[in-house]
């Protein structure tokens, strides 16, 4: 598939016993982005990350990473860094030994970078991993993943257990690495309110399927909140793609997909742009609605024009 994608999948599905954790997943995530993977618990976020990391095998469909590599292949493994949920490193080992272990397990390894990173945060290398704070443990996991100098870094809810300050520090280190190395990042998160500042590409999973996928700027610019008379709401909803429809007796709020222009509405309607947080929450509340072209929801670069 396209060489400039970090995750490319079509009809991808993963079944655990009888239930599908991920189904009919079509994505073409471009390289060089910070991608946020959002969705309720059980939406398939961890499954998708696990598949991309090569930790599990798909039940159906195709999946390639880093422009055509097979997940789990030696080539892919060497170029992908993974920070697992509740990154469980050996609690009894001092940080220094974890770094040494990383050096032995990886072909490409920048131990000096990891030490500089941890020194800068005042994390003692002789402290046992299990005795570090949650924020420090997360930083050690990140330092180990970045020392590989990966081209793609996958993180499964890296912020979940962290306090606000630790979250800020974690994202600062992660995004600085993006600025310096230009690596691609895909991370899952529930901290929807913090996404607007950190990610530039968004994937929303709902019920095991891709609900939204696209550049943040396109998504934010491509929606409008229309506020106007309820009497005219039906007519509006009939001709515009409505994401979320909230009506009171007199006044209604309709979140519509406009594809980057103002919606063609009468003067009685006020239209406003919405922030990423409101957009994401609206889609999460309406799992049946998707912001994808085509019946199966594939978003490929060639089809992007169809979005508008």
């Amino acid at each position: 598939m396209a060489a400039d994608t970090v995750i490319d999948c079509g009809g991808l599905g993963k079944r655990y016993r009888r239930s599908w954790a991920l189904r009919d997943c079509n994505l073409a995530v471009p390289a060089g982005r910070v991608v946020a993977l959002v969705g309720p618990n059980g939406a398939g976020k961890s499954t998708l990350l696990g598949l991309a990391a090569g930790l599990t095998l798909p039940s159906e469909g195709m999946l390639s990473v880093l422009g055509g590599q097979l997940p789990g292949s030696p080539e892919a493994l060497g170029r992908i860094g993974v920070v697992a949920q509740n990154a469980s490193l050996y609690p009894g080992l001092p940080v220094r030994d974890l770094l040494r272990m990383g050096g032995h397990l990886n072909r490409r390894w920048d131990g000096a970078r990891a030490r500089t990173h941890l020194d800068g945060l005042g994390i003692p290398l002789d402290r046992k991993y299990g005795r570090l704070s949650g924020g420090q443990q997360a930083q050690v996991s990140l330092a180990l993943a970045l020392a590989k100098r990966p081209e793609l870094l996958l993180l499964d809810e890296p912020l979940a257990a962290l306090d606000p300050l630790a979250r800020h520090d974690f994202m600062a280190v992660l995004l600085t690495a993006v600025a310096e190395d230009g690596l691609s990042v895909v991370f899952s998160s529930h901290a929807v309110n913090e996404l607007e500042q950190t990610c530039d590409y968004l994937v929303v999973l709902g019920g095991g399927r891709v609900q939204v996928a696209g550049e943040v700027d396109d998504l934010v610019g491509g929606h409008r909140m229309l506020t106007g008379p309820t009497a005219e709401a039906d007519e509006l909803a009939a001709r515009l793609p409505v994401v979320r429809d909230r009506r009171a007796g007199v006044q209604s709020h309709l979140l519509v997909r406009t594809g980057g222009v103002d919606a063609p509405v009468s003067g009685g309607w006020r239209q406003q742009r919405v922030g990423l947080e409101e957009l994401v929450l609206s889609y999460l509340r309406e799992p049946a609605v998707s912001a994808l072209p085509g019946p199966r929801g594939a978003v490929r670069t060639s089809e992007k024009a169809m979005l508008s």
Partner: protein
Amino acid sequence: MELDKGADQPSPIEFRLDPASGVPTYLQLVQQVEQALRMGWLTEGDRLPRVREVVAGLAINPNTVLKAYRELEHRGLAVGRRGQGTFVRGLPAGVVPLRERAALRRGLLDWMRSARNAGLDEGGMVAVFEDALRDLREGRDGVVA
């Protein structure tokens, strides 16, 4: 990349973010540079903070900083020099001389007094102002919504 320190002096300003403002992040950075220019904190030739420094300090996407700097270049306020950083070029177009600014402020105060006399509280004034500003921005001034 831009790893050498010390060779040139640090930027005179540092960015901050107000997540509650509702203003897109890149625009907040643009506005802070404009503000710093208006206040004289930044002058021609000054270096803006390096992308890496901004990202490390604010934990924001590097592309957001690049977008802000591109916008500043587009507005003619800054110029990027390969490998060196982004530098201040000129004053923003929307800057008016202090005397004129004071006169505009007096006019606004007059309006506020008449609004208060008409029974509008501070929240009401802000609502009217923001509403009118939006119409002005969207070219709908004069049209009753």
